[in-house]
């Protein structure tokens, strides 16, 4: 290369490097500001509601657009109950799928079955809503709920949980749909972390005569414990903010009852339904934004825990 060209090209290159590095850095800082502004905008938008109702907003079960008295109590309760119930149903199934895919399935089946489960995660939530409304709700109201109500009729406590007219919509159906939606997330994460267990560990356990289940229980579980909990929290994060599917099947009533078969609502479903009827600058809109802020804080905490637990996996 003639010296003159080299002399010309080096300053150019330096400028190019500075500009490109600056661009990527600016984009990185932009992301930070994006999350920051989401938090600030929700907090500022919800401020009139927090000011009007005080900390009691969090637990108040009122939601009355006529008298303009609003509270987050029912929807926070609905959000937490549906999500936790969904996890109770989803975790064993997710574990079963992950266990099957890593230990039991023949090699040629692993990829197609794994892909099918992953595709379940790609189905848009509005589709789960329709499927839930037109397929699951009728099944619940004609088969499952009458059977449960009759079955637990004389069992104390349980008769309160499974009571009421079997409409098919309600907390339980919402939790069921959420479970179906998070199973692929939790299952795929569990499968991935199970796969990180060194084969030597498992072979040693098989070598001393462990059964497949014993290998999973005493080798795979202890090795992947944190990441498994992290995957479950990731699923919880998804369930908490799920909107469309829940809106279709939860029944949308602002009340708390002991029965899981009764209607309720969640933060996301309440916001989705009531937002269109709120005027700009109204206390109702502020209350919905405040609900959004609360949902954001809950999700943020859950996702942060999930990430801390899943982290070591990515460090490798």
């Amino acid at each position: 290369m003639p010296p003159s060209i080299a002399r010309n090209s080096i300053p150019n290159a330096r400028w190019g490097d500075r500009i490109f590095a600056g661009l990527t850095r600016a984009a990185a800082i932009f992301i930070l500001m994006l999350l920051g502004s989401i938090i600030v905008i929700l907090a500022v938008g919800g401020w009139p509601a927090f000011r009007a109702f005080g900390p009691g907003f969090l637990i108040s079960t009122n939601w009355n657009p006529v008298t303009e008295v609003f509270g987050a109590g029912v929807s926070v309760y609905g959000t937490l109950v549906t999500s936790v119930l969904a996890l109770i149903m989803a975790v064993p199934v997710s574990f079963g799928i992950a266990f099957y895919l890593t230990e039991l399935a023949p090699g040629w089946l692993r990829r197609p079955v794994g892909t099918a489960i992953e595709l379940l995660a790609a189905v848009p939530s509005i589709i789960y809503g329709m499927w839930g409304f037109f397929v699951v709700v009728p099944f619940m109201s004609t088969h499952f709920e009458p059977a449960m109500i009759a079955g637990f009729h004389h069992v104390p406590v349980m008769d309160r949980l499974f009571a009421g007219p079997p409409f098919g919509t309600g907390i339980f159906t919402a939790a069921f749909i959420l479970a179906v939606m998070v199973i692929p997330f939790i299952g795929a994460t569990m499968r991935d972390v199970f796969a990180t267990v060194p084969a030597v560990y498992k072979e040693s356990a098989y070598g001393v005569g462990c059964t497949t289940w014993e290998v999973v229980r005493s080798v795979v579980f202890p090795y992947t414990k944190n990441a498994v909990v992290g995957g479950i929290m990731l699923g919880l994060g998804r369930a908490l903010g799920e909107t469309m599917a829940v809106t279709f099947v939860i029944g949308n009533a602002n009340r708390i009852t002991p029965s899981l078969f009764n209607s309720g609502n969640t933060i996301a479903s309440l916001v989705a339904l009531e937002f269109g009827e709120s005027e700009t600058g109204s206390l109702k809109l502020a209350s919905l934004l405040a609900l959004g802020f609360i949902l954001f804080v809950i999700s943020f905490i859950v996702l942060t825990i999930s990430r801390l637990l899943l982290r070591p996996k990515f460090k490798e």
Partner: protein
Amino acid sequence: MNVTHSGTASGFPLRDQGVALRLSRRRRAVSRLIEALCVLATLAGLFLLGSILFTLVSNGIGGMNWTVFTRITAPSGDGGGLLNAIVGTIIQAGLGTLLGTPVGLLVGTYLSEYGRDSKLGEAVRFVSDILLSAPSILIGLFVYRLMVEPAGGYSGWAGVVALAVIVVPIVVRTTEDMLRLVPISLREAAVALGAPRWKAITQICYRAARDGIVTGILLAIARVAGETAPLLFTSLGNLNWSLDMTQPMSSLPVTIYSYASSPFDDWVQLAWVGALLITAGVLALNILARVVLRKRS
């Protein structure tokens, strides 16, 4: 395969071979039972996917005809189609991806090439992961306050921005992961030849990671094409034909939402057709993304 089977022969000081045998039988039975339950769980998962697809096809295929693609939404009984919703979704998902992808690409590049272990890099990776899983309805609320209120009305642009916010973290994640897979020696070779670092990244690393990055973009399109919640408060939906981005814009998911919960049979039928279309599109994009990635490995 069980050592306790042969009692003393294995070297264990077992008093009673009968106990050992019973124990080993029990252990194997427990394992078998749990294995069977796991197979059942997997079958349940496959059954659910099958049930959803079957429901969509059996309800949607009957209403599938040309008017769906040639006519716009119309009052019940007037034989409307979904043309405006389909076009609206293509425009919004397309522009959202166009807007979000460059940002995601740059952030992913920063995380892999410049700020890999820096404090800023750690923070950005964390924030991007939070955005990836944050409830999408909150992004709708955010864009409503940011754009719809100041502008005084719902608009296609607001929908595009909301979808772009969802695209960014997806592209960040795949870009970073894929760039990290590019061997360091490729970068060194480029720099050793006198290429500036930015050229090494844009012309060598991007090319090596191209399939992976394309996969990420395809997955991002698939994700935002089916999003409903963030569009409810941004582009709102439009029953008329409108390509004006400053006006409310129709989209397939929002139309499905309002039609599915309507009391009219022909609207519910159209909702099923729309649901079948959107699911087929989203799943096809997902499968395409996997094919692109597998071709490489």
